């Protein structure tokens, strides 16, 4: 098990390195002069030169890259040009908010998507299946930012059921930070009011973000269950009188879930990207919102730092998915 994790971590290193090269290339090489871009439109040549020296742009590229690698290894991404705070500190503060949001929507997508996909497969080509097929295509076709706005229109502005933006109402004191997860922290502090308020704030963003994933998970579960239903062991179990509800929800589902699991790993990248949009609309103080700000203000140290962190999370999620994969399938478990 440990060896498996170690091997996977080692395998992830080349792709992380590639990611570093790509971001470095994009941020430092593609723009004609990053210093000019950073200094702003009204900068004097002296100011530009100062910035160039401060950021080390006057060094040869390979040296800059080596310096950059050393920084990354120490999780030292420098100071944000916009917030004037260390990037790593900003990320540390904001990452839990994004993780809370993505995990919530992943859970939503998984726990709704898998049963929905299974039901559709069991009622293959009948109305539950057809409905789900239409809904799942629609779920992928909908623009998340528009859907978020429509949700705000209906549930926040019109019905006034759920808050419009943010993680917590301004009237409620935030619980002391332990994990950074608002729901967990409020429970740790025994603050029931903060918990329910945070939960209310989480609902609309999580629904918006889960939409695409929900549709994808439902589709892959459906395809997996349909395939499994054709296998011989299903016939055998039926012939031996295993009741159909046990057969479907226990035996067939465990076999089919592998396909959906693989998707969850792939979905994570999409979720992070979706968080960029969702956080912007719901003023969610997470890393996606931060990234958009950084991109808009050409805050290149933030961009580099965020990319590295997202890349690591992405690799970690994929390793985790492989682990779970192995736990589900005993034939793979022996290789762990």
């Amino acid at each position, binding site marked *: 098990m440990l060896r498996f994790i170690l091997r996977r971590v080692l395998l992830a290193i080349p792709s992380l390195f590639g990611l570093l090269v790509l971001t470095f290339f994009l941020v430092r090489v593609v723009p004609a002069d990053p210093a000019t871009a950073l200094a702003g439109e009204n900068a004097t040549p002296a100011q530009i030169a100062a910035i160039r020296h401060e950021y080390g742009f006057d060094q040869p590229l390979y040296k800059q890259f080596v310096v950059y690698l050393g920084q990354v290894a120490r999780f030292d991404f420098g100071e944000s040009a916009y917030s004037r705070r260390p990037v790593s500190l900003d990320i540390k503060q904001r990452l839990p908010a994004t993780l809370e949001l993505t995990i919530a929507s992943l859970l939503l997508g998984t726990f709704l998507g898998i049963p929905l996909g299974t039901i559709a497969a069991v009622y293959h080509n009948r109305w539950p299946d057809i409905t789900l097929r239409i809904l799942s295509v629609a779920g992928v076709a909908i623009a998340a930012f528009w859907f978020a706005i429509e949700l705000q229109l209906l549930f926040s502005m019109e019905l006034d059921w759920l808050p419009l933006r943010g993680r917590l109402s301004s009237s409620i004191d935030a619980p002391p930070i332990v994990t950074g997860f608002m729901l967990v922290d409020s429970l740790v502090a025994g603050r029931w009011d903060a918990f329910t308020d945070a939960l209310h704030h989480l609902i609309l963003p999580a629904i918006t973000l889960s939409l695409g994933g929900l549709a994808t998970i439902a589709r892959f579960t459906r395809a997996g269950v349909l395939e499994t239903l054709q*296998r*011989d*062991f299903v*016939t*055998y*179990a*039926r*012939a*031996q*009188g*295993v*009741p*159909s509800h*046990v057969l479907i929800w*226990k*035996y067939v589902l*465990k*076999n089919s879930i592998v396909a959906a699991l693989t998707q969850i790993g792939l979905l994570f990248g999409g979720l992070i990207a979706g968080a960029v949009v969702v956080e912007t609309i719901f003023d969610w103080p997470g890393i996606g919102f931060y990234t958009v700000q950084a991109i808009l203000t050409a805050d290149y140290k933030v961009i580099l730092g965020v990319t590295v962190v997202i890349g690591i999370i992405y690799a970690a999620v994929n390793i985790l998915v492989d682990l779970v994969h192995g736990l*589900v*399938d*005993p*034939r793979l478990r022996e290789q762990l």
Partner: protein
Amino acid sequence: MSAPLLDIQTMRLSVKTDEGTAQILDHVTLTLPRGRILGLVGESGCGKSTLVRAVLGILPRGASVDSGRILFENEDLLRLSEQELAKRIRGSRIGFIPQDPYLALNPVFTVGDQLLSVMRWHAPAPPGVTGKRARMRHHRARLVELLRRVQIPEPEAVLDRYPHQFSGGQRQRLMIAGALACNPRLVIADEPTTALDVTTQLQILKLLKSLVAEFDISMLFVTHDFGVVAQLCDDITVMYAGQTVESGPTAAVLADPQHPYTQALLACHPDRAQSLLGIPGRVPSPLNAPPGCRYAPRCPHAIDECTRRAPHFAQTGAGHLVNCRLAETRPEAA
């Protein structure tokens, strides 16, 4: 003589496909007396497996029984609902041994989990054993005993293993134990030795034969191999293209086959064939099968009448029935 355990009477079954309706079973008749082993023989695609599925009530979608009855202990299985079949027939009174034990076991659950789940639903608990835990303990003990009986080494440990950790022969022994787990009256074995090598095949056949007497069951043994039938079965029923063509005591049918198809098939068997000739022509498509005898297009004795009307069963010996015009016209044997 008491009523047979399983009595299938003139059953017709069709499947709707994209290209039309296929008549998969056409007047199938089959009788299995208590305590005996009946070999159901035919080439692949002749409807053997469909017949088995019909008995178990697990027909694929699109298949429907048009007429006939499946009497099991004097109860027509075709009249039972899916719930009733699942509850008191499949697994409990009829055990099933599949063709390929490797594909029939779910790879992601332990063997014990799978076999015990069947017992949990169907195995009767002896009086005095109450409570879920006590029942499961009882089932577990019984399963271990059964596994020992089918000669699986370390039966206790085996329950926690996964299907891929067994050899083919062992897997088939597991399936046999599974079929017997709930004290069935009838065991249906669907080509249980086809996926095995010859030595293992022989061991499994011996095991089955001894179990039939020991557990007081009857067995419907589906196969395409006359050699296996000769070793194992008391009676034989031969099918061709969805029709029963001949049935009777194994010795009588093998020694003196009456139907031209049985004769041709036996002649093809490597042990008997002087040359590897095969039967000329091919099996007709069930999509537009001729109204009469389905073997007629390949039969050397066929006349016009054969293709126009279905033949009737004629008795040619004690319990020896033949579904052929030739036998009809022949004077009945004493």
